[in-house]
């Protein structure tokens, strides 16, 4: 019975294994507050560190440098300045828009950080770092960062 079985080929075989998942994401009390404000009041909120005074958006529960709990919410106008952008020209199934479209980092007025989101209502060739932007909200909102449809140039 022992042989090296030449009659069975060594031809490389490739097997596809399908893996499913359906992960649930908890946004937590802090995330919920931020997302609820987006949904119900079309408002972008920042959160302020009681120790260093910095205002963060999107919020977290703890200050990333002081490690103290943050609970003071700050109303932001939603307006901001573009600090960087990129134009996506490849397609992936997880993208919310058809390429080409632009992502930007928007330095929010009244906050110490920027928010990474999409840009819209703008000629892709005319995007400039430093341009002023304001959010455009979706008509139907569900409590997600995508309730902001995109940021557009403000006059």
């Amino acid at each position: 019975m022992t042989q090296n079985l030449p009659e069975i080929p060594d031809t490389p075989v490739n097997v596809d294994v399908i893996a499913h998942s359906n992960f649930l994401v908890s946004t937590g009390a802090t995330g919920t507050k931020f997302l609820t404000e987006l949904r119900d009041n079309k408002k972008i909120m920042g959160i302020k560190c009681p120790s260093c005074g910095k205002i963060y958006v999107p919020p977290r529960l703890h200050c990333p440098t002081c490690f103290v709990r943050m609970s003071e919410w700050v109303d932001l106008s939603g307006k901001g300045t573009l600090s960087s952008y990129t134009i996506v020209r490849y397609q992936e199934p997880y993208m919310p828009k058809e390429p080409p479209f632009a992502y930007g980092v928007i330095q929010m007025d009244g906050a110490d950080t920027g928010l990474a989101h999409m840009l819209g209502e703008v000629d892709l060739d005319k995007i400039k770092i430093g341009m002023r932007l304001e959010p455009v909200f979706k008509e139907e909102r569900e409590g997600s960062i995508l309730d902001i449809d995109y940021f557009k140039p403000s006059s």
Partner: protein
Amino acid sequence: MAERIAIVGVGQTHHKSKRPDVTTAELCAEAVERCLEDAGMQMKDIDHLVMGSFEVADGYYSPDKWIIPELGVVGKSGLEMQNVGTTGGVVAAASFNSAATGLFDAVLCLAWQKMDEAAGAFGRGGGGANEYWTGQFPMSPITNFARRTYAYMDRSGCTEEHIAIVRVKQDQCAMKNEYAQLRLGLTVEKVMQDVLLAWPIRRLHMCPTTAGAAACIVCPEEKAKKVTNKPVWVEDWLTCHQGGALTMAEDPTASTLRYACNVVYKRCGITNPLKEIQAWEVYEPASPAELRWIEEVGICEDYTAWKLFEQNKVGIDKEVPFNPSGGVTATNPIGATPVVRLVEAVLQVRGDAGEHQIQGKIERALATGYGGQGENVIMLLRKSL
């Protein structure tokens, strides 16, 4: 080199089945806050982090990146370790190694799992699958332990009722542990009537799905003595894995626990483990596993552990002080579970375990991590140097 190291602070979350009120990162921060408070330290005192979770159940690639800012440790060094069920064990081992280099004053060891978010993570052939072959069978930790227990019962003469007694003992311990997730007030009858998942494993026999995190701070000798007056020394540690050497079909009883314990006992001069180690926190993912593990750590002869339960000799302040916290069948945030074991062992050594504290002097405690099909991490703690 080889600094002696001690654990100067521990913290864990109250383990729950669901935590919609926090993100995974916030859950970790909760354990870290408690840990720092316990040690009387601040985040700025920490200079290195070792962290980890079972990434497959997290649905994340490298979740440390996202969690780091929540912990206020941007700008610090660190790394993420992972090895399925033993993740917490390798995280602890890595934090011990890092602290023992003497390069850092304080190393934070953190592990977490938020199982309420991991729907179907194990339906994908987790916990027992070579990625191509065994992954094609509908295997899970449940089926693994069904086989393991079947083999154990076959060889030992232990019955389903004995396994139910084990589960009841675990629950009795958990009832005294405020951090435990399942505190049910079980009886043998209740366990015997529970839903059968795969004979002889019932739902109550398997570890629950838990959202929880645990952390500890490890310091080299000099720093440890400055920080606290009750450091718990880490006498030895060992990761000992099976590495897919045997599938469940090949040997359903494969385990490296006995081998690993013997290596550690030899290095530390332990000849009578039951006498020399006064508290045990051993990772048993299913209640029948506790029987086999008691034998493998050297407490009794092979295939006789069920008799100890029959004679009511296992539990807090009993002859065999095994898993006073209630163990893994009460609480199982997978990746974090070995660190929970470590935290509980530290509390026992310090005498701070509260209601489930073992009375009498505890000089040594042993905690383990378990994963896959018989991978083990051993952590041996000591009260005095």
